[in-house]
């Protein structure tokens, strides 16, 4: 049991991404343990989102490799990486604006027979899956407090609601690991705590691994097992939340204290 929990879920080796003369991510090595909640922190523009984009196939790395569950996924397109069981959300919410909130979640479902050209005509072949998925989607919507809005156009949600929708879609995907890019930015503190306790619960119940980019450390640190701190495209420190808070390097560059 112990050994499984210690297993590395996601590993990057020397990931580097450049834009012209700009080195956005510089030889980053991280290990995300299975069933952990790993936090990635750092000031604006330090390369966190670029790192996530490079891991999830939006960008191809200039150097380095990404391993997910021991498999090399470097340079695979995003839809293939989703298929491997790794899903991410976006910092800037990217909802399917003209679909209902419920449909936004349903889109994320995996291997839906109704999405196949061959079977879509036969409603009976997929309606059961659809109903199950709808029930599941409503559970998540309730957790996120979005269930009242299930039949609204996604464009009607406010900024916080859109953030939650992003999380809902990721949860819907049955991924074994989810990367959340600033899940509680613009969300009120009570709901933010709520979201994080649900994340912990999901980790405990379903064994999902979470990697979370977040700025609001007052909330996020409390719930995380391990933290990586980035600055200027490099990992400057890593450790447990307590270690990170005490780390002089992190304090000086990130917290801006003297």
């Amino acid at each position: 049991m112990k050994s499984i929990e210690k297993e590395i879920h996601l590993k990057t080796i020397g990931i580097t991404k450049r834009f012209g003369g700009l080195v956005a991510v510089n030889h980053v090595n991280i290990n995300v343990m299975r069933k952990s909640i790993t936090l990635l922190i750092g000031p604006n523009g330090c390369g966190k989102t670029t790192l996530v984009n490079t891991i999830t196939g939006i960008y191809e790395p200039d150097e380095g490799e990404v391993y997910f569950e021991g498999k090399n996924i470097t340079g695979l397109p995003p839809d293939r990486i989703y298929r491997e069981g790794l899903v991410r959300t976006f910092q800037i919410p990217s909802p399917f604006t003209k679909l209902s909130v419920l449909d936004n979640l349903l889109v994320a479902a995996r291997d839906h027979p109704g999405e196949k050209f061959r079977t879509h005509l036969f409603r009976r072949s997929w309606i059961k899956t659809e109903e199950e998925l709808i029930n599941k989607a409503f559970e998540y919507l309730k957790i996120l407090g979005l269930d009242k809005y299930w039949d609204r156009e996604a464009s009607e949600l406010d900024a916080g609601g859109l953030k939650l929708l992003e999380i809902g879609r990721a949860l819907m995907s049955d991924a074994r690991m989810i990367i959340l890019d600033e899940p509680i930015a613009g969300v009120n503190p009570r709901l933010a705590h709520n979201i994080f306790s649900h994340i912990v619960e999901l980790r405990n119940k379903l064994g999902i691994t979470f990697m979370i980019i977040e700025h609001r450390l007052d909330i996020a640190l409390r719930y995380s097992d391990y933290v990586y701190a980035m600055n200027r495209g490099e990992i400057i420190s890593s450790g447990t939340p307590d270690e990170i808070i005490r780390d002089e390097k992190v304090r000086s560059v990130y917290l801006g204290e003297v």
Partner: protein
Amino acid sequence: MLVIEKLNSGYGKLHVLYDVSLTAKRKEITAVLGPNGAGKTTLLNSIFGLADIYSGSIELDDERLNKMPPHMISRRGVSYVFQLMNIFPNLTVEENLRLVARFSGMNHKDIENSLKEIYDLFPILKERRRQVAGTLSGGERQMLAISIGLIKRPRLLLLDEPTAGLAVRYVDMLIEKILEMKKTMDMIILLVEQNVHKALKIADKVYVLVSGRIIFEGTPSELVNKEDIAKMYLGVG
């Protein structure tokens, strides 16, 4: 002097700033601090005519800037250094500078003088002046972006997180340069920063913006003494 009174602005239906009032003086650095998503960039966008202003006023030396299109505001002597996409990547360094200078209606002599001033301030740019701007390193790129803002000798310089994502040596250097600019050039500097430590070191006046509202106004030392605001901004309990 830049005077903003009771500004309410945002983008379409998205209301970002609420009753923001702010004064920035000539030959001073006024810093606006605040957590991510507080509306700092929106404040700069509002001054520059890139956001929708619902109410309130923005005046530069007693001239109203609201409702002017950005290119007219620019011609009134306002320079805005964006956080990203702030250079012309396929032009050389000097082309970048000359282009902007020529468009601000400067004559040949002024351009040469202004260029010399900038090269004195940032000698590295002089070395790289024939290089295509897109190939500069992050720090050099940011210096060029600031120089683009400076070349036309603005009355008001808006800086949006100039040190974000830069290597340490560049951050310190850039901060030094901004201080130097304040001393040698006669202009209002409005600086948006998230690097509190550095910003507090050089600012004459500080505003803290949280969730679209100004929650603190004063000198850097006053801010350091008010621990709760520091905490709120820093986001660490």
